[in-house]
């Protein structure tokens, strides 16, 4: 057995991207790498997108109607992607289902399946309630169609299935949907916060890690989640509206046959209003997130417990650029100033959202990787080098391309989901 094993080229998990300096314990590596940075980022986006959509559904911020519907559908597209980085990170991905089969409830991770599935069903239910009238109308329209082609027959089957047999679209029935939808959205907010707060808890409860261990972690995660979710929704919304404007101008697809389709000016006007209001909410949540993060930092510096010496060196020296320049200055302060300066425009806000997203990514990075940048011996450091050119499957999935795969997937999913659950509907088939 020993001889057999010795023949393998021995690279330990983590060795490919960890550079050790001074005294680190022999088994210490950066075990949680870029995919674990992506995990809170993606769950944060899911939760944030949902919260934005709830602002309309629960609190009745009517001006947000269009972006709210868009966020809801986008949140649904992001949902499966929240699980993806975890699967890519597991050493035994085929056993991932064990978390649902034999959950060990003393572990924070064991609740993941339950929380995630609860949240997924809430989002799915809400979408169904919002789009039921549209499903029924489309299915009826397709059923009434003569000489249906293969594609239309297929679409008809899908839409018939999507109605789940609830064909009643009388005024009372739709009103009932509306009420139920409000309840689901109301229920969804705490669950979305729990989904992400709990991701923060996974880190915050690791007592062995001096940087992670703080009860503020879940709250910080929730605030930054909403920030990232709202920012991504604004960004994607603006991009999609630009594409639609272009299509309206050049009379493509829907605009070629449908006279009631919104023209470019209408699109521009609605875009402006929605972006301005959503970015106000973005600002509120940014203030909360930044306050908490700075509070955590000041508290650590002020109390100066045993771990502060090494944390200070990591935060103030080794990771200074990543934390204070990239995360705080470029990712927080700059976009904040851009948005509060008078005469805010959609373009300026859009650029700010890109910076905000970058800032939230850097925050996740600095927490996850920064937390592993120092040795448990407090006498050494570990440097993370993101694998770019993969030389085996592991360096692919836990490298740049693995992370990019995760980042791109929600947009691909959104494209397909949008075919059946269109995020933009002018007609009053939804509410």
């Amino acid at each position, binding site marked *: *057995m*020993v001889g057999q*094993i*010795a023949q*393998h080229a*021995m*690279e*330990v*998990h*983590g*060795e490919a991207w960890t*550079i*050790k*300096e*001074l*005294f*680190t*314990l*022999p*088994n*210490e*590596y950066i*075990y*949680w790498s870029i995919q674990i940075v992506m995990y809170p980022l993606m769950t944060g986006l899911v939760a944030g997108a949902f919260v934005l959509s709830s602002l309309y559904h629960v609190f009745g911020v009517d001006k947000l109607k269009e972006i709210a519907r868009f966020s809801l559908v986008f949140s649904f597209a992001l949902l499966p992607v929240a699980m993806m980085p*975890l699967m890519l*990170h*597991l*050493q*035994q991905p085929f*056993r*991932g289902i*064990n*978390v649902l*089969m*034999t*959950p*060990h409830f*003393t*572990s*924070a*991770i*064991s609740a*993941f399946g339950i929380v995630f599935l609860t949240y997924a069903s809430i989002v799915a239910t809400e979408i169904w309630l919002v789009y039921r009238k549209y499903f029924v109308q489309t299915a009826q329209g397709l059923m009434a169609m003569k000489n249906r082609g293969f594609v239309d027959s297929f679409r008809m089957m899908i839409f018939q299935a999507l109605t789940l047999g609830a064909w009643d679209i009388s005024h009372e029935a739709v009103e009932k949907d509306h009420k139920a939808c409000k309840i689901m959205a109301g229920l969804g907010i705490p669950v979305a916060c729990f989904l992400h707060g709990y991701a923060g808890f*996974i880190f915050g409860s*690791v*007592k*062995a*890690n001096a940087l992670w261990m703080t009860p503020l972690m879940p709250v910080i995660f929730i605030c930054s989640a909403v920030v990232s979710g709202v920012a991504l929704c604004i960004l994607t919304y603006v991009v999609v509206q630009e594409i639609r404007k272009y299509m309206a101008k050049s009379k493509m697809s829907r605009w070629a046959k449908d006279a009631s389709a919104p023209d470019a000016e209408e699109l521009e006007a609605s875009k402006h209003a929605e972006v301005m209001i959503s970015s106000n909410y973005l600002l509120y949540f940014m203030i909360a997130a930044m306050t908490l993060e700075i509070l955590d930092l000041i508290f650590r510096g002020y109390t100066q417990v045993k771990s502060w010496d090494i944390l200070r060196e990591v935060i103030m020296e080794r990771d200074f650029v990543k934390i204070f320049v990239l995360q705080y200055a470029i990712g927080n302060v700059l976009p904040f100033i851009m948005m509060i300066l008078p005469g805010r425009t959609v373009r300026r806000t859009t650029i700010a959202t890109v910076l905000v997203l970058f800032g939230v990514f850097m925050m996740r990075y600095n927490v996850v990787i920064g937390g592993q940048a120092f*040795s*448990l*011996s*407090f*006498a*050494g450091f570990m440097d993370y080098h993101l694998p770019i050119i993969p030389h085996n499957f592991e360096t692919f999935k836990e490298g740049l391309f693995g992370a990019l795969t995760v980042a791109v997937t929600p947009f691909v999913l959104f494209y397909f989901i949008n075919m059946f659950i269109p995020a933009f509907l002018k007609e009053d088939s939804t509410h």
Partner: protein
Amino acid sequence: MERREFLKKCIMVVAGASVPLSALRLIDPEKVLAANPDIQWAFLVDTNKCVGCGFCVKACKTENDIPFDAHVSRTWVERYVYTKDDKRYVDSPDAALYGFTESRIDLGRGEFKEIDPDNVGKAFFVPKLCNHCSSPACTQVCPVGATYKTDDGVVLVDRKWCIGCGYCIMACPYAARFFHPVYHVADKCTFCYHRLSKGLDSACVNACPFGARKMGNIHDKNDPITKIIMNERVGVLKDEFGTKPQAFYIGLAQEVR
């Protein structure tokens, strides 16, 4: 007896009896045995005796199928050097698999530091391994229950059930865990459970030529190791985490973390 009278008396009997009856508890013999099992393994390291030969690491890797050329180890030895000008150096090259054959200190990144022997204040070796804590953080965080503590006090990993999330590795304050380079699951010291259960010593205890490593049953008051732990001044590593380590150290310096 009237019905009303009967019910009244019933209530009185039930209320009166419930107080003394609540003091009685049904005893589950299995639970009693689990609470006081005959065996509870503990480890004793005498740092004064360790010379840093690395035989324990070699024996451990051989016994437990941890490849020699993999840069992880279930047990390792650290070298501490304090200079007279108040500097502290620590290293553990290759987890001390080949012992400390060089006097220069390994600073990582291929850099080394030669220390003037006249400048050395004190220097010593500290062997380390899984502490098999009484309240282990690692078993608490395992999402599938693949790592667990046996009734006789040993923390083990089920290689067939571990999903490889790494949460236990993150949770361990002692960095005793790692991913096995061949099986791709969490791996750690087992106190050589396969040997213990046959009445043998663990591989490292067996290999140590100086008796720096010993194991005993701390539920046996007559066990010589238990006597040392009970009667002498011993310390544990990082007790601030509340994990209640079961590896005890003689001659532990406070700088050892």
